[in-house]
């Protein structure tokens, strides 16, 4: 009976480590993310073989708390993000649009987690649950924002049967890796973590005829 209970408890611990599901934010759905370093990859691209290899590098257990392995550190990336705006003028007369561009704090710094690592929302910023957030911030550097202006206004005239699109590209930094949590030398959680911070955004405006 004891053996069955022990196996059941161990299974409960194992389930989250076997199911690797990434809790992703918007940046993982960007049209394009290209690393400068060809060998670097996003957390969502980690294979189960990658996870096994990284966990094996952290085989020494600890008394309590999180143990981190940084796989990708401050790796520069280029990205093409989502379309910020699309305005259609289906009418027969010219229209004037006032567009306001603001980059949300949630876009400037984003995180993802997999396995049994979870995230929480505090204010408008997502954080890794528990002390892991502080451990990661202490291990990797991330950008602080100090901009010339917080939002920009742009007036545009749109011809009939025309649409306007504003897209953003940019440069950013990715940090990712895996982590394990211990409680009295017993591993209780394991999974992957990733931070994405935007360093510069570039805007592009396109006017096209509705086909």
């Amino acid at each position, binding site marked *: 009976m004891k053996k069955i209970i022990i196996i059941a408890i161990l299974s409960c611990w194992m389930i989250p480590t076997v199911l690797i599901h990434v809790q992703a934010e918007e940046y993982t759905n960007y049209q394009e993310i290209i690393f400068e370093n060809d060998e670097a990859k996003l957390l969502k691209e980690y294979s189960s073989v990658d996870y096994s290899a990284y966990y094996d590098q952290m085989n020494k257990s600890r008394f309590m708390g999180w143990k981190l392995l940084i796989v990708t550190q401050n790796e520069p990336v280029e990205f093409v993000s989502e379309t910020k705006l699309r305005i259609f003028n289906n009418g027969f007369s010219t229209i004037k649009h006032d567009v306001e*561009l603001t980059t949300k704090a949630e876009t400037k710094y984003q995180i993802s987690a997999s396995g049994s690592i979870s995230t929480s929302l505090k204010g408008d910023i997502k954080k890794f649950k528990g002390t892991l957030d502080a451990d990661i911030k202490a291990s990797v550097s991330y950008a602080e924002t100090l901009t010339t*202006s917080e939002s920009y206004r742009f007036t545009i005239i749109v011809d009939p049967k025309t649409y306007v699109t504003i897209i953003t590209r940019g440069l950013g930094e990715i940090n990712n890796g895996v982590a394990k949590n211990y409680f009295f030398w017993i591993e209780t959680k394991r999974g992957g973590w990733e931070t994405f911070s935007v360093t510069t955004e570039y805007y592009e405006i396109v006017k096209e005829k509705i086909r």
Partner: protein
Amino acid sequence: MKKVAFCLLALYLIIVVLVLFFDQKPAQEIAILHVKSNRAVLLGSAEECLDVVLYLSDTDSFFTDEQNIVSVMIQDDNQLVAASVRSILLDSRPVIIDTTRYYPFTFQLVFDQVISSGGQLIFFHPHCLFTYQNEELLDIEMGDLTLSFMEISPIEHLDFTRLYGMMNTSSDRQFLNGIVIGLKKYPLGDISLESFESTLPNLLLDLSQAQIIAEPISPFTDISELLQKPYFPILSEESVLSTSLILKAEETLLFIPIFYRDLTLKTEQFPLVIHYSYAGNAYTFILDDFIYYQDHDYKLASESDVWEYLYRY
């Protein structure tokens, strides 16, 4: 008994620490930061405003209370313009720099007292002066500023189909080294482009080195390849950038290189004033002040970009 005494002692120590922690006197100084940049703003109406972002280490000071502001002036050595504060907004999260928490306040300035339709004010290294009821003067150093009081053009002969900036990322400092603009002409006859103006005297668009490109290129392309010669962003005083370019096709995609008088401060935003001629007449096509890029990383701002002020009381 020993345990009880130990617990009481521990409790006493915790209370002492908490009292000391929470009983600190309020801050005796307020730190204020402003990121300088060269800006060109198109103000099409009295409602349009100029945003000045100040980072303050205190959320509740007289600096950010509109009622306490007596006057606002933007001035350089030669000219000045009076402004009014429409509102002061705090709608972004604070940033932590060197352990100090700074809150970004946007001061929205309007020029309703002096707006002159069609006029242009060009300030070199101006100061923005806020005078408060307590006679405190907040004297903010800004980058070059051009205020153009003009409306964007209706589409007549010419319209744009695409617009983005080309970036130099090879040096330590990021800057725009060109723009890509798609132009569409409506009349059947040729249109002659005479010049492109950014309205900033420091930033010049060189039409004489413009290239017609077949399709959009990456904003990170090395423009020396496009120009087929090394690109040096700083322009000498003697350089004259004037030539015309004939638009024959209905749609043309142009790359136009940018040159600077100096690169001390970054320029992220400017309007485009395109002078062209059609059928022997001169016209102007004005595009609103587009934001080409935006830095989000404090590390990218050099020390000379940031104006700092420490108010002690």
